Structures are given as C-alpha cells and as structure tokens.
C-alpha cells in the first residue's frame, strides 16, 4: 500500500545509484540464457518484446511514408517487352532496388495498384489498353517477379543498372584504393557469405590482405542468369520440347556464369597485380629471405672456422702422440742397451773373480746404466762386444770413472748451490718470508688449509683453491691457479726433505746425548738452531714434548692459551713457553724458505 504524498513533495532524484552493474558468472543453460545471449549478440539495447514490436511498427509506418519515385516512362512501356523493363523502376523503387524489403515491395505495389488500376482510370475517364496491352500489366508483372524470392534473385542478378566493368591495371597504377575499393564493394553483393572482407588500406596487416584475396579468389556468388533465358519453359508444348529448351537454357546460363566468374577473376587478378601492399609484402619476404641467407652464410663461415680449429688441434695431438711414441722407442732402446751392458758385464763376471770386487763392480755398472745416455751406452756396448774381457773391463772402468767424476762434480755444484740458497733464504725469511712469489706464512697456511678443504677430485680444484686464497688472503696478492699448483707441488716436495732434516736433527741430538754427556737425559740442548738464544736455560726433550703436546691440546683460539700451556709444562713460565714457540716457528720458517730457495734455483737452472 503506497503512502499519500506530503505537501510539497515532488518527483525528484535525490542521489545517484551507488553501485553500477556487476559482472556475474552464469551457467550456460536454459532457454533464457540462450535468449539473453542472442539479444546481446544482435545488440538489442533493451530486452523487451514491446520494444521490438515498436520497432516493427515504426518500420511499417516508414513503409507507408515510403517515397515512391515516379517512373516517367511507365505509361509508355510495352507490356510485351516486360523482360527488358526495370521492375524496380516500374514499382517506383528505383532508388532502393535490391535493398527493398518484401514489405516495401508489397506496399509499393499496393500504392501503384491504387493509382494505376484500369478500373480506377476508367472511372477517371482515361484511355485503357485492351486486355494485356495496358501498361498496368507491367506493374503486375513487376510485382510478380519481385515478390517471388527466386524470380527476384534472378532479376537482381542481371540488375540493368549494375556496373559490370572491371578497372584495368593501368587505371589503378596511381590510386589503387580509390579505384578498386568501390568496385569490390559493389561486387560484394553477389557473395553468398554475409561478411565480405574490406579491401582495407595501405596499413592492413598481411593476414587481412591474405584473407581478402583468398576470399575473392574463392568467391562464392549467387548470381545466376536464368532471367536471360531465351525461351520460356512454360511455352513448350510437349515434354521433348521442354527438355530441349531446358538444355538450351542450361547451356546459356552456364556460359554466362562462366563469364561472370571470369569477370570476378579478372577483377581480383587486376587488383592483386596492382596492389601496392602485395608488392610491399613480397619485398619484405625477399628481404627476410636475404637476411636468412646471410645468417646461414655466416653460420657456415663460423662452422668452417671451427672445423679448421679442430683440425689444428687434431694435428697437435697427433704430433704429441708421435713425440711420445718416439720417446718410448728411445726408452726401450736405452733399456735394451742397459740390459745388454748388464748381460755382457755379467757374462764376464764383472771383470773380476773376487766377490767383493764383483759386487762393487756391479754397483758401478748399475750406476753406469742409470747415468749414461743412449748413444754412449750404445758406444760402450759396441766397444764391449768388439773387445775381449780385459779390453771391456778397461772401457767400463774408464766409463765408470768418468761417470763418478761427473757425479762428484754435480754433487759439489749442488752443495754450493744449497749453501748459497740457504744464505739467501735466511736473508729472505728475515725480510718477511716472501721468497718465491711472496708467499707469506699466512698464505702458506691458508694454502694448506685450502688444499685440505678441497681434496683431489674437486671440480676444477685449483681454480677453486686460488679463489679461496684470494678471498681469504690478507696480503692482497692475486694468485692464479697455476701459482697455487706450483706452490702446492713444491710444498709436497719439500715435505720429505723436512722429514729427513728432522730425523737428522734427532739423530744428532741422540748422539750428543749419549756421546758427550752420557747418563744425563736433560742435557740435550738444541742449540744448533737457537741463533740468538738468551740466558734462559735450554729446553729438554721432555719439556719440548710437553710443550708440543700442550700446543696441540690448546689450539689458537683457546682463551688464556699460554697460561694453560705454561701450566702443562712444569718448570717453565708463560714467557718461556712463548719464546720457545716463537723460536720454533722461526726455525721452521727458515728451513722452509731455504728449501724453497733451493728448489727455485734448480728450477731456474732447468
């Protein structure tokens, strides 16, 4: 129940609706859904039957107001010649033609009948033709044709005012779109398919153009030419005649249809050959192909370069292989010669009957085998085979002497070098320890750590180690993998020497202990390495051992390390321990440096 309006209340909108429409997901079922989609697809703005009815009404009223064109020739038309008349013009629809709706045709006919019916004219006192001779027959005929969809189509097909012309190629040279666009639009009305693609413009995409031409090349036309049939089937008197007429007509129609298709074909051909877009696309295609070709060529060149490189590598490898083989051959030869020497020596019982002498000779021969080159060995063997036992002995002894002399010389040289090296290494350790390539103590430690951290088998192990070194080193020296490898190898080589040294030292100590001060354990000072040793009492082995143990049990980061270490070594203060430790470190460093020096020297010599 609605309320009564209060005084002064008027129709008004106080505020706009707060919410617009929302999009909802719906289920695609049911007839209302279908109806909804259909309405939406044909873009009906409102969803009501009434509106559609209104539209229809307005259409009808439009029909009533339909402007019929006066056809001035109407009255002069010859009803006999109805085939050649323009039926649309007769009904006054000359301006709408094939677009006229059935309704409009009906309305137009009605209007014409009202105006031109013979009875009406007779009443108006006009002259009327006899029977079918009156021009009204034309109107009837026109309506008859246009109201029948089949006949109307036939008439539309040969629409007398349709322009069948096809622009020639030369016409379209300059303004292709202006010339061809209207022609295609005109011909589009013959299409069976509803949506005819437009010619487009210069900016149309390749797909659009392609779709356009493929549509027109496969043009499906409804145009037919039954209207132009020479004879009318209905006029035939018997079946045979009718058949004959039909046959004639069919042939004529087919011919015309073919002509029509040819016309369309020519049109499309002309357009295609003139189309600037096609030219453009072709050029683009060509450019693309060219680019592809170039890319391929480049690829081929690259490939050739790669192949050449591979070949080179292969050659290098082959050479290396050859060299290796040669070496092996040489090795084998040496081996053979050695064996020969040994056997000859053995055959001659090592040139002596004395056992001891024999053994000594054997050793010497072995030495010979090791030291001599291939050529000298060969020479020796030749000499041995060519002479007697005594001669052989002389040759061998001579050779042995030579070799011994050589060894001695080498030894002397080496000793001299070692002496020199140790001197320089001492110098270098005092100046910071960076003997070779500035490997400081920290770096060395770091290297050892790194080597342990990345064991053999790690992926690109030495690069990783080098990186690790560079990252963690405090010296800031950049090291390459090669440096690291060299250093590590040298360290490894050094190790056994160090061990030897230590062993020797221990032996010396032992000798001193037992030789100089026998029965006294604590009298073994390690003075030899304590260059600037101060007044503190020397360390005994016992104490040394304890200290080492303590150093191990309390690692570097232990808080109050030295106190604890001192406590672990009875009879020694914290200061003593530290001093001793420093000495030891220095000692080791010096030794290492010296060894390095030697190694470097030998390497340099090589």
């Amino acid at each position: 129940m609605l309320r009564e309006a209060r005084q002064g209340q008027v129709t008004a909108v106080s505020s706009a609706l707060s919410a617009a429409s929302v999009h909802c997901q719906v289920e695609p079922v049911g007839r209302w859904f279908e109806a909804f989609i259909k309405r939406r697809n044909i873009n009906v703005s409102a969803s009501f039957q009434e509106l559609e009815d209104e539209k229809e009404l307005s259409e009808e009223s439009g029909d009533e107001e339909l402007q019929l064109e006066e056809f001035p020739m109407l009255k002069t038309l010859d009803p006999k010649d109805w085939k050649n008349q323009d039926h649309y013009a007769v009904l006054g629809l000359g301006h709408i033609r094939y677009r006229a709706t059935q309704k409009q045709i009906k309305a137009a006919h009605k209007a014409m009948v009202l105006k031109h019916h013979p009875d009406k004219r007779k009443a108006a006192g006009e002259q009327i033709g006899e029977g079918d001779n009156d021009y009204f027959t034309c109107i009837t005929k026109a309506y008859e044709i246009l109201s029948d969809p089949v006949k109307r189509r036939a008439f539309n097909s040969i629409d007398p005012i349709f322009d069948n012309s096809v622009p020639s190629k030369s016409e379209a040279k300059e303004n292709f779109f202006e010339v061809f666009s209207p022609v295609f639009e005109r011909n589009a009305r013959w299409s069976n398919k509803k949506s005819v693609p437009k010619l487009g413009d210069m900016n149309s995409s390749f797909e659009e153009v392609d779709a356009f031409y493929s549509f027109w090349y496969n043009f499906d036309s409804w145009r037919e030419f039954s209207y132009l049939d020479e004879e009318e089937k209905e006029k035939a008197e018997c079946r045979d005649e009718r058949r004959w007429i039909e046959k004639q007509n069919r042939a004529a129609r087919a011919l015309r249809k073919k002509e029509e298709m040819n016309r369309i074909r020519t049109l499309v051909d002309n357009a295609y050959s003139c189309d600037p877009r096609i030219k453009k696309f072709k050029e683009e295609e060509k450019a693309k192909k060219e680019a592809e070709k170039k890319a391929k060529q480049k690829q081929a060149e690259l490939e050739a370069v790669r192949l050449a490189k591979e070949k080179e590598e292969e050659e290098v490898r082959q050479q290396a292989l050859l060299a290796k083989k040669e070496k092996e051959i040489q090795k084998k030869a040496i081996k053979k010669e050695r064996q020969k020497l040994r056997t000859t020596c053995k055959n001659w019982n090592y040139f002596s009957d004395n056992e001891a002498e024999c053994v000594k000779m054997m050793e010497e021969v072995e030495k010979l085998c090791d030291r001599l080159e291939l050529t000298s060995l060969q020479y020796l063997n030749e000499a041995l085979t060519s002479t007697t036992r005594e001669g052989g002995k002389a040759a061998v002894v001579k050779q042995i002497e030579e070799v011994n002399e050589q060894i001695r010389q080498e030894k002397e040289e080496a000793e001299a070098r070692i002496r020199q090296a140790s001197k320089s290494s001492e110098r270098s350790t005092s100046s910071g320890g960076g003997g070779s390539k500035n490997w400081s103590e920290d770096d060395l430690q770091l290297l050892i750590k790194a080597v342990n951290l990345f064991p053999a088998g790690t992926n690109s192990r030495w690069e990783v180690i080098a990186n690790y070194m560079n990252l963690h080193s405090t010296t800031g020296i950049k090291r390459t993998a090669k440096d690291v490898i060299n250093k590590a190898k040298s360290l490894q080589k050094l190790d056994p020497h160090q061990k030897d040294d230590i062993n020797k030292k221990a032996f010396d100590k032992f000798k001193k202990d037992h030789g100089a001060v026998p029965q006294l354990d604590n009298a073994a000072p390690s003075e030899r390495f304590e260059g600037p040793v101060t007044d503190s009492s020397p360390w005994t082995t016992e104490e040394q051992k304890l200290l080492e143990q303590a150093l191990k049990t309390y690692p570097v980061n232990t808080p109050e390390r030295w106190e604890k270490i001192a406590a672990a070594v009875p009879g020694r203060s914290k200061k003593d321990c530290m001093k001793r430790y420093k000495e030891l470190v220095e000692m080791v460093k010096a030794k290492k440096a010296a060894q390095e020096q030697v190694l470097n020297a030998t390497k340099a010599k090589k």
Partner: protein
Amino acid sequence: MAAIGVHLGCTCACAAVYKDGRADVVANDAGDRVTPAVVAYSESEEVVGLAAKQSRVRNISNTVVKVKQILGRSSGDPQAEKYITESKCSVTEKNGKLQYEMDNKLVSPEEVAKLIFSKMKETAQSALGSDVNDVVITVPFDFGENQKNALGEAAGAAGFNVLRLIHEPSAALLAYGIGQDSPTGKSNVLVYKLGGTSLSITVIEVNSGIYRVLATNTDDSIGGVCFTEALAQHLASEFQRGYKHDIRENPRAMMKLMNSADIAKHSLSTLGSANCFVDSLYDGLDFDCNVSRARFELICSPLFNKCIEAIKKLLQQVRLTADDINKVVLCGGSARIPKLQHLIKDLFPTVELLNSIPPDEVIPIGAAIEAGILLGRENLLLEDEALSMECSAKDILVKGVDESGSDTFTVLFPSGTPLPARRQHTLQAPGSNSSVCLELYESIGKCLAKEEDKFAQIVLQDLDKKEDGLHDILTVLTMKRDGSLHITCTDQDTGKCEVITVEVAS
C-alpha cells in the same frame, strides 16, 4: 530432430534422449536405465557396463572403474595420486600422460571414457532407431579446463558432436524446469547430489531464468560406495559370527559381499528389509542374511550425519539460512535413500523437496533438455565473455505502509538480475488519497533499507478519489547494462505519468 544428454559419473553413466519436446532416460541393452561406468579389458574385447562390473571379481586388474576421477589429470595431481594408490589396476605415466596398463597394452583414460560414451551412444540410438550425434554432456562443477577438454575429446572420439558441456547442478535444475516458465522472479535452489564416490552440494540463484552458482562444495570422502562398504562390513561380521571365519582379508570374498551389499542397499530404498545371499562366499560356505532398513540406517548413521553436516556447513559459508532456500533438488543415485531424504526434509521443513524424477536420472534429463534447446541453433560456441553477464548490484525497494501503519519495503527489482531488464509492478494506494508517493531505496542483502539509501521519490498528484477503491499505479523499472535506472509510474485511472532516470554514481 533429436538430441542426447549424457551424464558420465564416477560409478555410473546414464543417457537421456530429447525427442518431440520430451526428455526421457533410455534403457540400455540389459534393460537398465543406468549403466555402470566400468570397462573390463580382456585379450580379445572390451566389455562395458554391468557385465564388466560383475566379472570384476575374476578380472580385477584389468577392469577400470571410476575413470572419471583420473580423466584429464596429470601425474602430479594429488587426486590422481590418490586414485593411483587406490586403483586395483596399474597406472603408469608415459609421455607425461597417465595410462592404464592392461595385458601389456597401454590404455589412456580418454579411451576408457570413449568406450563408455560409445556404449551410451549405442543405447540412445537403439532407443531412437536413428543415428543421433548431437549431445550435451554434464561435468562436475569443479572440473578444470584440462578435464573438460579430455571429456570432450573422449566424447568426440566416440562419434558425438558435443553441443556443450554443462555443469551437473545446472542440469538438475533444468530437469525440473526451474525458472524456465516465467523468467521473472528470483529464488535460491539447493542441489544435493550424492553420487557413487562424492557428495557435492551447490546453491544456485535463479534470476530471470538464468542460473548463477552462489556456492558449491564437493566432498570426495563420502559417496554411495561408503554405504555399501559399511553394509558389507556388517555382513562380514555377521558371517564371522556365524561361521567363525574372518573374510575381511580375502579380497575376492569381500568383492562378492560388496556386490551383494550393493543389491541389498538398492532394495532397501524401496523395501523394509532385504536379503543378502552369497553362494560359496568363503571356503564353500554359503551366506544368507536378512537386513532390515532400520538396521541399515543404524549402521550408516555416522554417514548420514556427515551428509547432513555438509549442507549446514555450506549454508553457513554463504550466510544463508534454511529459510532462504526455496527449493531442494535431489540427484545422484544415493539420494534415493529414504532416511537421507527424511533428514533433508527435516533440515528444510518448509521447502519443496524435488524428487519426482529418479535422482540418478535428473542430470542426464537436464542435459537432454539443454540439448533440445541447443538443437538447430547456430553459434553454439561460447566465448568466455558470454558466461559473464552484467547484473544489478543492489535490490531496488519501494517504501509503503501496511494496515497497521508501519513502514514496509517491497522489492521491485532484485539484485543479481541480468541486465538489461525490465520489471513491471502494479502498486496500490488507498483510493481516498488524491496523491501517492513512491519512495525508492536501494539496499544490499537482507538488511533493511535505511534513510540514506533512499535515492529518489516519485509523486503523482491530483488523482481521482475513489472512496471504496484502490489506485492502481503501474510502475515499470528498466535498468540498462551499465546499471542506470529508468522508472515510469502511471496511474491507471487518470493516465497521469511520471518518469525519472537515475544514473550511476561515477
């Protein structure tokens, strides 16, 4: 012209044909209206339907059941993994696709579905006596794009021309023609589907004859099979009591017992008691047992509770009460169980329970009706945008007074109406007044309109006074797609007319 609607469920498939304006389920060659969706592979042939189901006892590793659960899923899918572990036949992955391994040949789930579809097609064609290809197929609401595609492909391979895939709950509504007769009005319908392996409940809003899903929930852990299993367990314990043999560990005996329990369960939906009889169930011993409906309901009471709780949960989720539901549609074979219908009836005491169509036939019938609607139409292809419609966001109400003089609100234009739309109402005012005033409000939900929601008023002055009559005010509301509203009020007696247009606030 005829068309088919096919529903492929996890356990059963059913086909309905649409002919001469009617949709009917067709019986298969065995005379059953529902065909088990079971495919058995043997060396020489593939068997679909009841025969395959019966022979599953002997041929378990080469019999495919519940193919729908794996259709269109890839191996990473948890659902597919679950299915593979439960399945009795081996499923392997090849080229990224899951396939069954049958007698050393690989069979894809699509091929299995294709066989079932072929069977349904045969069934429909033998009933119609002519070749029919146009079909509408139903899919569960939670089917993804891949699964829909797989199902469509399978149907296409079976020779069907798929007109459309529609959701099962919508098909159920269509079967009852809800909202199809008169397009105005708005109602909420609850579709309760208890199928073989899953329970799915959907609330659909029907407005202007168009369906919109408000909420849906699928529970894969409960289905008709659970009831059968519970009954079979009961029967097994009965057997143990009688013969002192525990047959639960014997898969073959349990399979036999399951088949028997299934039959008993079906007859209990119509009869007060059912007889379970299995020859030579175990060790040559026959088994014979009577189960009453009350016993069955007792055994299954936890399951019933679960089925009902699911409804309550879903309603809570969409903030609706039982009163907001106007209709309940039952579908799925297990919705036949009388106890379940009873419980649902208790939950919705005032609501119409639609179960006149056998529940397991509702969905295929709906699909067939849809197929009939689509038959002969062009442009069946739906773009995604077609599935989304502009709808009005808020209710449009008019304020009036009742006999006691207090304010009342009448909904003139409900929310969720697909736009554009026109609604026409004849409002009445006491004839003693010479003027009427329509105060228009907008509101969302069920909360009453407040004063600030008022957006317009329409006043008609100088009406003819009628002492013992009523003024009839014809009110037409038209809302365009953008949500702007146009209202025309006309007094029927004097022809006085007021028109307003309300735009949407930008």
